[in-house]
């Protein structure tokens, strides 16, 4: 039996998924390959790693303080791990030392694998030091942030990346990193921390920018097509809002009633 009030969810999810998957199919068959603009955040990441390599100082990365199974930020953590793969590859290629600080134990094995694989891929498996390249701190946000800050000071990091979900500790980490003089690129979907990161970091991926950046980093260029699906879904939302507002002005609650079904 269909649960009341969930029909709209089902329809929206189905339509959006169908759009995204069909665009993906079209682009993988080379029938229609959308042109996606390179995200400025990705260039910012590259520049920061390059500068760290020039200065001979390490790069630090945090994939967030939430778990893989978080009911709100799972995708955020996943995107952070995809971006970690890129950062690991770039820093191995450019020859700067990478330190990954981990808060959640469930993220630890994945992050270790990601970095190990990336280093092997770049032909530098010896650069990966067990328990040293990927460091576990504490599942508690304050335990984690104090350790991360301490690490940044002691290692004198030149670039710091904060992706994934960060709660109130984000500001602590980013402002301390700026004291050290590190270039920072951050991204989160936690809307309460976004303003703080936007002000304190050199470059900030706002909300879905992070997801788009993760998709953009797929090794196979045609698969970036899914980002266009994301755009189309957004355009549908805009259409719904505009039509809905016009209808409401004339006294009809049609759209909002449909969405409440």
């Amino acid at each position: 039996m269909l649960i009341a009030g969930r029909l709209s969810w089902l329809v929206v999810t189905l339509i959006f998924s169908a759009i995204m998957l069909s665009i993906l199919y079209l682009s993988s068959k080379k029938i229609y390959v959308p042109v996606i603009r390179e995200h400025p955040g990705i260039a910012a990441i590259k520049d920061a790693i390059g500068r760290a390599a020039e200065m001979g100082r390490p790069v630090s990365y945090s994939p967030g303080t939430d778990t893989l199974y978080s009911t709100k930020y799972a995708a955020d953590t996943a995107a952070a791990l995809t971006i970690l793969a890129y950062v690991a590859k770039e820093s191995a290629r450019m020859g700067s030392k990478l330190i990954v600080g981990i808060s959640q134990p469930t993220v630890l094995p994945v992050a270790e694998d990601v970095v190990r694989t990336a280093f092997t891929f770049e032909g530098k498996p010896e650069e990966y030091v067990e328990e040293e390249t990927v460091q576990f701190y504490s599942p508690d946000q304050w335990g984690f942030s104090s350790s991360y800050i301490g690490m940044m000071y002691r290692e004198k990091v030149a670039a710091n990346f904060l992706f994934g979900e960060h709660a109130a500790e984000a500001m602590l980490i980013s402002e301390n990193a700026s004291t050290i003089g590190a270039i920072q690129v951050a991204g989160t979907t936690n809307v309460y921390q976004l303003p703080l990161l936007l002000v304190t970091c050199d470059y900030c991926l706002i909300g879905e920018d992070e997801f788009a950046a993760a998709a953009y980093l797929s090794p196979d260029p045609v698969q970036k097509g899914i980002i266009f699906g994301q755009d189309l879904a957004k355009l549908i939302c805009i259409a719904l809002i505009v039509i809905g507002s016009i209808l409401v002005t004339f006294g009809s609650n049609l759209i909002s009633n449909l969405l409440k079904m």
Partner: protein
Amino acid sequence: MSIVFKKGTSVVLFVVAMIFFFDYFWKDPTLQGTATNLNNWVVVIAAFALGLGAYSLTVRHVQIIRKRGMLMPYSIALLVTMFTFIITGLVTHSISSPEYSFIYNSIIVPASQALYGMSSFFIASASYRALRAKSYESLVCLAAAMFILFLNAPIFGVINPILPSLGKIVWDTSISTGMRAILIGIGIGTLTTGLRIIIGQDKAPLGGGD
């Protein structure tokens, strides 16, 4: 053997996701029961994962102590505190026993509160360092911040009653506009990322290549 597990991983990812999707809109006791079970299991698996973390942390600090590095005394302090907590917890067999509450309240509570509160100091330095009118965009950002300060602190209303009402206007117009759009975007982005992982296009969140 390995191929079974590798295929199994993708199957688990897809099937479990489908169970949760169907459970959301379709009322069925078996489905609901399965979803609840899976959800409960995940918490147990995560509890096991902590062993990995604690192991990694212990190994790193034991290495530091072995090498007699600069951080040796601190690593000793870390391990001692960690084992004090573990032993107290396991011996008293409760996290609400007086002994456990004592160490919890005298170490974790004040240190966490101190760190949390410290962010107000960082807001101060960030306001000085980063809220600068380098472009029109940052000018808008800075002006909005200023007006909200006028709104929130009673003293500005005393200086000039217009200041808080200006703040109120900025507040009313800005606060839900931008956030609403960001939230919609995040919802759609989550779907994109989720789909990419569930259909097996993005393998990094599982640990990368084979």
